[in-house]
């Protein structure tokens, strides 16, 4: 049977009322789940629309590899539930705190170490239910892997940072936890690491994460026992003990190491084509995702960082502001003109008067 369409409940009525009142007053709302990532994106004015109490797993059948849960469900609860059946969220999302919710995870669109080898959040979003600025509850996509009925609004919600509406529930595709996982350590310089990671990615090697920092390349292999063992034999390097390996990737995913600790200097997230050689910036760096993601602590001016990223065919995000970071600096690289116009019109489809998280992505909408 299809999931029953819930269009009314005390929580939904409360949300609808708050949205209606904001709309009538020409106001704005800051949608908030666990408040674990409120620092991400541009600051949002307006009172909070708290969605935490719209929570719970709606449907989960392990044999279908799909879970549907409400936005306020703690991310930790989702992961614990599916882990009991040997399954995982393949995009390995960072929580950035124990209060992280599923809705916030989807809205932020942030993925962890497995991203380069398993895909982004949007690759695993199968369906969503949202509430728009008119208080209408709408469902897009569904619970099945293949679905091309109507435009793919469900995937559009991943990374939309709450600018299009309230994500009420989401259906995600899951994957089995690989039977075997081991990590290898290599000593090499940055350009050699970038070249090597791209070269390996073109070979049938079961990689599931990679990172380079201060002359050390870490590679995680996940798959069948035989597949992982044969890759270890083929690639060389030093085998990392299992507990050390788990701790390393967990620290990278949650950014708990000293490199990522709050600082005077901003933390920049620079996304570039993975074969891009070492970026010409001053400062310290942690590289991930086979070369596609470069975390930088750099004193260079924002304009220079963005110029370097864009010249390489990528973009730079002011991920965590430092105590020295000038106020008012936009969090994201500028969206090119014609695309920005479309995005502004799309925002208006869901939220014509601009109630939801205005400016969070772009000062223009």
């Amino acid at each position, binding site marked *: 049977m299809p999931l029953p369409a819930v269009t009314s409940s005390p929580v939904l009525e409360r949300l609808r009322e708050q949205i209606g009142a904001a709309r009538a007053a020409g106001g704005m709302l800051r949608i908030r789940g666990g408040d674990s990532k409120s620092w991400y994106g541009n600051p949002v004015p307006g009172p909070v629309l708290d969605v935490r109490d719209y929570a719970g797993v709606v449907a989960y059948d392990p044999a279908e590899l799909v879970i549907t849960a409400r936005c306020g469900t703690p991310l930790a609860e989702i992961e614990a539930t599916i882990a009991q059946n040997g399954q995982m969220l393949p995009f390995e999302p960072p929580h950035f705190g124990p209060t992280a919710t599923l809705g916030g995870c989807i809205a932020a669109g942030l993925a962890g170490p497995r991203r380069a080898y398993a895909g982004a959040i949007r690759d695993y979003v199968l369906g969503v239910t949202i509430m728009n600025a008119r208080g209408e509850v709408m469902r897009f996509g569904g619970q099945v892997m293949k679905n091309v009925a109507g435009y793919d609004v469900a995937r559009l919600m991943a990374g939309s940072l709450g600018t299009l509406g309230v994500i009420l529930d989401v259906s995600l595709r899951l994957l089995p936890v690989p039977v075997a996982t081991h990590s290898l350590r290599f000593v090499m310089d940055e350009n050699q690491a970038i070249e090597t990671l791209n070269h390996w990615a073109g070979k049938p*090697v079961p990689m599931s994460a990679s990172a380079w920092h201060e002359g050390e390349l870490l590679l995680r292999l996940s798959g069948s026992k035989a597949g992982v063992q044969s890759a270890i034999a083929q690639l060389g390097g030093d085998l990392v003990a299992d507990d050390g390996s788990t701790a390393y990737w967990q620290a990278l995913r949650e950014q708990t190491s000293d490199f990522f600790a709050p600082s005077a200097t901003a933390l920049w997230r620079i996304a570039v084509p993975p074969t891009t050689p070492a970026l010409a910036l001053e400062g310290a760096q942690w590289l991930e995702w086979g070369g596609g993601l470069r975390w930088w602590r750099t004193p260079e001016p924002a304009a220079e960082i963005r110029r370097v990223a864009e010249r390489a065919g990528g*973009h730079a995000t002011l991920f965590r502001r430092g105590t020295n970071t000038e106020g008012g600096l936009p969090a994201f690289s500028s969206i090119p003109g014609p695309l920005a116009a479309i995005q502004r019109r799309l925002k208006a489809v869901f939220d014509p008067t601009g109630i939801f998280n205005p400016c969070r992505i772009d000062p223009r909408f």
Partner: protein
Amino acid sequence: MAQAMTTDAGSHHASALDTPPTSAGAQLRARLLNALQTAVPGCQVLTGEENLAPYETDALPVYRQLPLMVALPDDESQVQGVLRECRRLGVPVVPRGGGTSLSGGATPMPNSLVLSLARLTRVLEVDPLARTATVQPGVRNIRISEVAAPYELYYAPDPSSQIACTIGGNVAENAGGLHCLKYGLTVHNILRVKAISMDGEVLEFGSLAPDAPGLDLLALLIGSEGMFAVVTEITVRLIPKPPVAKLVLASFDDVETAGDAVAAIIGEGIIPAGLEMMDKPAIAAVEAFVHAGYDQEAAALLLCEADGNREEVAEEVARICAVLQRHEVRDVQVSSNEAERLKWWSGRKNALPAAGRLAPDYFCMDGSIPRRAIGKLLKRIQGMEEVYGLQCLNVFHAGDGNLHPLILFDGNDADQLRRAEDFGADILERCVELGGTITGEHGVGIEKLNSMCVQFTPAERETFLAIKRAFDPAGLLNADKGIPTHARCAEYGHMHVSGGRLPFPDIERF
């Protein structure tokens, strides 16, 4: 299907108009032709019924409509020029790739221009280290894997029409294929798309970097059925070719047992490269056509592929066989060499032409349901065969829960055509009822517009229509596809009752 004609009488570069205007359509054609000759002088344009006839339909030939003309641009600037002129004159545009749509996605609109991308066939770059290929939209799906082969890389999505369908069409439809379970759909394998809006603006979606700033418009564009923008350049992700692939062929006495075995394989934590199923009528049809060596006594057949390096494949095949043995399998065989593996696949891949030998026409349906409901739906379809008096073969991507019932009929018999359409709509509505969707990978096109009224509420459909306007405010780009108007749904709601029996069956409908 799309073909370039170079020397026909109706082919223009800068010739005078050969058809005198006799109607509003002809006048519009004359104005458009003059405009294109002035603004885009190098672009070939076809007019005249004999030249337009190959474009009046796609791979769903029960729907036909002659366009005003066909434009065959050679490059991006010509695409831009054609779109600008059509926008200025208010002429609808229907983009067309290989013309292999099974849902009527490339059927011309009345008084429209068909924009064929068939000449944009250049492979612009293959970058083996970055594992990307950048190609024009008219490049055929299989050609990408051919040009990547020297680097032991390939492009994973493999729709059955892959020798003829183009990558531009794949992007428009979010095409799937036989290996989606492990390697994803088109949307999972495209990094960047360059496209021209109906207003003639050049747009770039996505990035060679892992993401791009702002909303993920690339995900929205893929599968938008050519209604947002005309794609002119695509960068696809290439992946390493698995050194070894083995196919497990299993037969069952009962379709529900086979369905349970599918769920059990996935439940075991195995993600096979392919997991396909066929029912008895489908087995008989393909066996008569390609002699794949299938067990013809079986009620259902499973094809389950493992790929990877030698050790991985051996481990996975052993796990698959162990699961099958627990599910009352009649017979299990593992391919012993590449020739045998390809022979077994050839049966499944030729299901559509095999169906074509059994009847003058067939509808290939495309519903998607949760895997656990496969057996239940098959039983329902068997019942429907009697209700509608038509035969149906079932082949499906069992691992994805994506079914392709093939409804056989004779399109020259108006009653059969009507019954086949109702049969199809009935199947799709049962898919929605079972928690699934009316189309898994073929698109809505014009074929499934009515079924969209069943799957989505008026507010959801209004959202789709508004998204369309955000990309194409004038509503000229393939605008009669994908999303039904509210008026159409109101009409469908009035005449529709479930079970395929309409009230007042004798009155004429349109």
